[in-house]
């Protein structure tokens, strides 16, 4: 087993530890301040080892996308909790997401493959980074929305959450941040698409689905500002928007024949 996978294994164990410790209020701080940062550091170390070996940021291909997602989501969550300690209950959920997502990644090809020429551009790297930042922020908004709905539904496992009004503001805050990065991702992708295909917009299913989620998030902002939609109503819309992002993400993996956002390509030309 090479050092990249040893680091990932350590990260996985640390995420697992963070989940266990976070659910108990007494040990939550240990998870928050020691275990999760440690998990993110070894996870990053694994990514750097891979980056050096393959010569590009490990954000391409399904396996690498899962590596990136399972690093960015807990990172943004950790930064959010550092700023707003009242929402530290999102940590075990993001750690669980990271762990499951890492495991999911291992069902795909983990071989170190150099990047294809069509993706060799700083613009693609920036596009991917903006995407992960957007999804990190939106994921927080999504988790808080779920928690808000559970809280208003009377779920007792979510003790320690802030007031509904504060949660509502946080959902909106991370939604707006995600929306900004989502727009940035769209702009960078369009720019690169114009270089590669001579078109800034194509009716690619992935592009179309991400446009749907962008419009849903735009709609949420307008509904809040026009009609004062808050709390549960907004939370439900955020969840719908995030579901379109999940479908868009899995479109990359499961409908590759229809999109130029090709993650995994058949490389073998002879046996």
């Amino acid at each position, binding site marked *: 087993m090479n050092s990249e996978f040893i680091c990932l294994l350590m990260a996985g164990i640390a995420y697992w530890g963070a989940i266990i410790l976070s659910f108990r209020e007494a040990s939550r701080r240990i998870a928050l301040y020691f275990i999760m940062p440690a998990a993110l550091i070894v996870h990053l170390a694994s990514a750097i080892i891979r980056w050096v070996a393959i010569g590009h940021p490990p954000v391409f291909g399904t396996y690498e996308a899962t590596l990136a997602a399972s690093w960015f989501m807990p990172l943004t969550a950790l930064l959010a909790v550092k700023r707003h300690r009242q929402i530290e209950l999102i940590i075990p959920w993001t750690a669980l997401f990271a762990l499951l997502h890492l495991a999911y990644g291992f069902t795909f090809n983990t071989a170190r493959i150099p990047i294809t020429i069509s993706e*060799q551009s700083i613009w693609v790297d920036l596009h991917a980074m903006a995407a992960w930042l957007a999804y990190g922020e939106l994921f927080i908004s999504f988790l808080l929305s779920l928690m808000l709905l559970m809280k208003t539904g009377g779920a007792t496992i979510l003790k320690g959450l802030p007031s509904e009004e504060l949660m509502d503001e946080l959902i909106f805050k991370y939604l707006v941040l995600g929306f900004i990065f989502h727009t940035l991702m769209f702009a960078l992708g*369009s720019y690169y698409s114009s*270089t590669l295909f001579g078109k800034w917009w194509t009716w690619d*299913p992935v592009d*179309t689905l991400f446009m749907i989620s962008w419009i849903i998030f735009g709609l949420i902002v307008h509904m809040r500002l026009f009609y004062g939609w808050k709390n549960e109503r907004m939370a439900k819309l955020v969840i719908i928007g995030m579901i379109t992002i999940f479908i868009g993400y899995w479109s990359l993996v499961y409908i590759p024949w229809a999109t130029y956002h090709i993650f995994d390509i058949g*490389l073998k030309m002879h046996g």
Partner: protein
Amino acid sequence: MKKSFTKTVWDSLGSRDLSVFIFIMGLTYLFVGYIFSTIVPPGWFDSFQSLLPLLVMYTLFFINLVICEIKWIPVAIGRCRQLELPRPDNLKRFGKGIGLDESYSINSLKQSLSKSFFRIKEYEVEGKSVLFYIRGLTAPLGNIIFHISFLFLLAGILVGLLYRVEGSFSIIEGRGFDGTPGFYNDIKGSPLSELPYIKFTLDSIIPEFWEGELLFTDLRADLTMEDGSKGSSWLSEAIGIDGASVTVNGIGYAISYNLKDREGKELKSGTVSMPNLFAPGMEDTLTIPGYPHRFLVAYYPDAKINGSNISNLSMNRKNPVIGLRVYRGRLPVFTGLLREGEEAEFDNHYISFPEVKYRGDFKFVKDSGFYFIWIAFVMMISGLVWRFLFCRKEVLIIEDKGEYSIYLKSEYFPLLFEKRIREMAGQL
């Protein structure tokens, strides 16, 4: 008072309800687009989107946007100018003040606010000392910038529809391209478009493949321009020529042949592009004018010969071998493998292939609408940042005989702002 018909139409077209309706229509339309784009060929949806009902939707969207902005711009500008200094006897817009316990530090709060891009106004009203901090006074402009960006997007699309021109052409290494229309494989031009002046010599095509895989790790075309300057074009990075972006987006093989008679006299020679020769191992047919033979050629850039079997180890030109079958009518007159320059004998003739060159497939796009599109994206992002990350926040500190009262106001995030202020005051 009854509204006039024009006013009713104006208000309806610029209403928030219509905005939301267009959002929902747009979502439905895109959802249908998503389903179709997964099951129909890529170009199909491009024609679908220009159907009349969808054009009506686009038109309605832009009418709604323009009317909303016409209504909103004076209000927003008014708000930007509105720096009404609050008076301690009229604090209606602030609501109730925040309570800080004994442990807070008003000095710490003042210092933190000064460092956080707040403008400070200090004044006295009826013997009370007032400190008014304000930030994000011009934030409403962000909203306008964001929405006007869609008009730039529209301008970009319209300019593209009128002036866009694109096309493709292929050149063999060592040859020049002079940009005359006959040299293009295809040209698609908009009504007012003009063909860019593209003229260069293709010095070399340099592809790199990863090990034995059909995976480009590099594809570069080195060019010499008309004025003698050098340039390069990649698949993922265009070279700009006369306002057009030119990229090399594919390669193929072109094969040089030399046909001789039995005395060694050259009968025919030339270099022909063979589009079906790539990928390696595929066969393409060469015919030579005046001769009845068909030459079926295959190319292995990195061949491994094992008895009568041949396989290709990589895409790189390390050990090139040409597979040749020659037919006269249906009769095979030669079958064999040749190295570059080796001769094959058939019907008292000799054919050799001294060189296999790369053929570069180029694409060019000239679309001035792109400039408007990029401006639109910059406006979108800066508008959002301006509106939401620098939204309007106000802090009012009133000192009356050594006692401090603090009042806060924030767009969008009042509770988070209160929490931040408490942190600044050192209470958290």
